[in-house]
């Protein structure tokens, strides 16, 4: 795989197609688990694991699986990895297992995973698919952890479980606060993204223009 392609996939997964903030996928764990930043990290790690391995397997089998039973096959593979990850977490990180609760099992139906399987892994080579899974997962983890930090600091006055101060706005720990935080995150991210995008385009345009002028100049000189 070329470096260029790798960069492309990495940028797509983390920023340009950030699953949480740009595609608005996998909203359920985003809203439910962001009351504690630590849970977000755990959830993110679990999602990365499942994404990478399911993308790997599905990409390997992409020419074997018939179209008619595609969805059941994909879902079985994803469910297997979810079960594996939940077994590991239950065995070695019991407290995380308790706080993630049902949402661990619900990674199966996280739209990010089936979405990537359908739209990327099922018609891309293995290495690309694994990278895509990795960076999509990282994008998801980063954004929910950030949201988790904001909600935990505001709603509980703690950060990764350590008490910061006694001041807390309980609203942010409640369901309504989850929606508010998410809405503001998307809005802010989009504003920043569009601003950066515009600047980059502008820059690219200028460079192109410069290159053209240079080319013209050289052509003129040659002439």
């Amino acid at each position: 795989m070329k470096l260029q392609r790798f960069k492309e996939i990495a940028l797509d997964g983390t920023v340009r197609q950030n699953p949480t903030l740009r595609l608005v996928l996998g909203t359920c764990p985003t809203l439910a688990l962001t009351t504690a930043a630590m849970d977000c990290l755990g959830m993110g790690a679990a999602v990365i694991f499942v994404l990478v391995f399911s993308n790997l397997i599905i990409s390997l089998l992409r020419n074997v699986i018939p179209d008619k039973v595609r969805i059941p096959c994909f879902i079985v593979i994803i469910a297997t990895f979810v079960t594996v990850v939940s077994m590991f977490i239950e065995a070695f990180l019991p407290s995380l297992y308790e706080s993630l609760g049902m949402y661990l099992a619900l990674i199966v139906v996280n739209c990010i995973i089936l979405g990537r399987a359908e739209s990327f892994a099922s018609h891309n080579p293995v290495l690309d698919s694994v990278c895509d899974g990795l960076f999509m997962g990282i994008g998801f983890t980063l954004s929910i952890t950030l949201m988790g930090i904001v909600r935990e600091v505001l709603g509980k006055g703690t950060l990764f479980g350590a008490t910061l101060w006694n001041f807390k706005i309980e609203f942010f720990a409640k369901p309504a606060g989850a929606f508010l935080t998410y809405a503001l995150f998307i809005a802010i991210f989009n504003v920043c993204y569009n601003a950066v995008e515009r600047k980059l385009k502008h820059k690219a345009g200028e460079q192109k223009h410069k290159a053209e002028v240079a080319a013209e100049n050289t052509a003129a000189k040659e002439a």
Partner: protein
Amino acid sequence: MDVFGIIVAALFADNFVLSQFLGICPFLGVSKKISSAAGMGLAVTAVMVITCAITYPIYTFLLAPMGLEYLSILVFILLIASLVQILEMVLKRFSPGLYSAMGIYLPLVTTNCAILGIAKIVTATVTSAEEAGYSFGEVFFGHYVKVNMALGYGEAVLSGLFYGLGFTLAIVLLAGLRQKADKLHVAKALKGFPITMLVACFMAMAFYVFTLI
């Protein structure tokens, strides 16, 4: 749990969307118009009832007595995916009217966490037999296995129905509010998902009151 308790919890206090955060994707995605929101809600309700009706006995009589609880995610999701596909085909063939009203939303239902969520909720077990809605003991491989389900079969199916209706209630309400909210002149950054989520935020505040009862 009594029937009235299930109804109130499912529709309001424990509302899947607004207090448990299950099924958020269709909640945000298929709520542009009231008619499509109602179709989606009905599809989810139908699949939820069928899911509860089928996964409950499979868990109680097959998986739990054999000590295969770890297979539940895989078996449930396989069942749900196949059922949805079958339901879609059957509806398309035999009831085109119903198909056009809710069938086209069925493929979206497969990856709806509300469905797997309800399957997980109704197959919850409890430790003591006294609190069990249904107890079932059997001997497998020389082990005496006792399964204490938190809900009875009737309660499980009823939960499926009313949690589905709770989902429908939330999504139809949101669709009604969105029809107005989408027309508002809001800041450009808030257009689309953010303003929808703000609307949902206010709905969640209103529904939060029910949990205080």
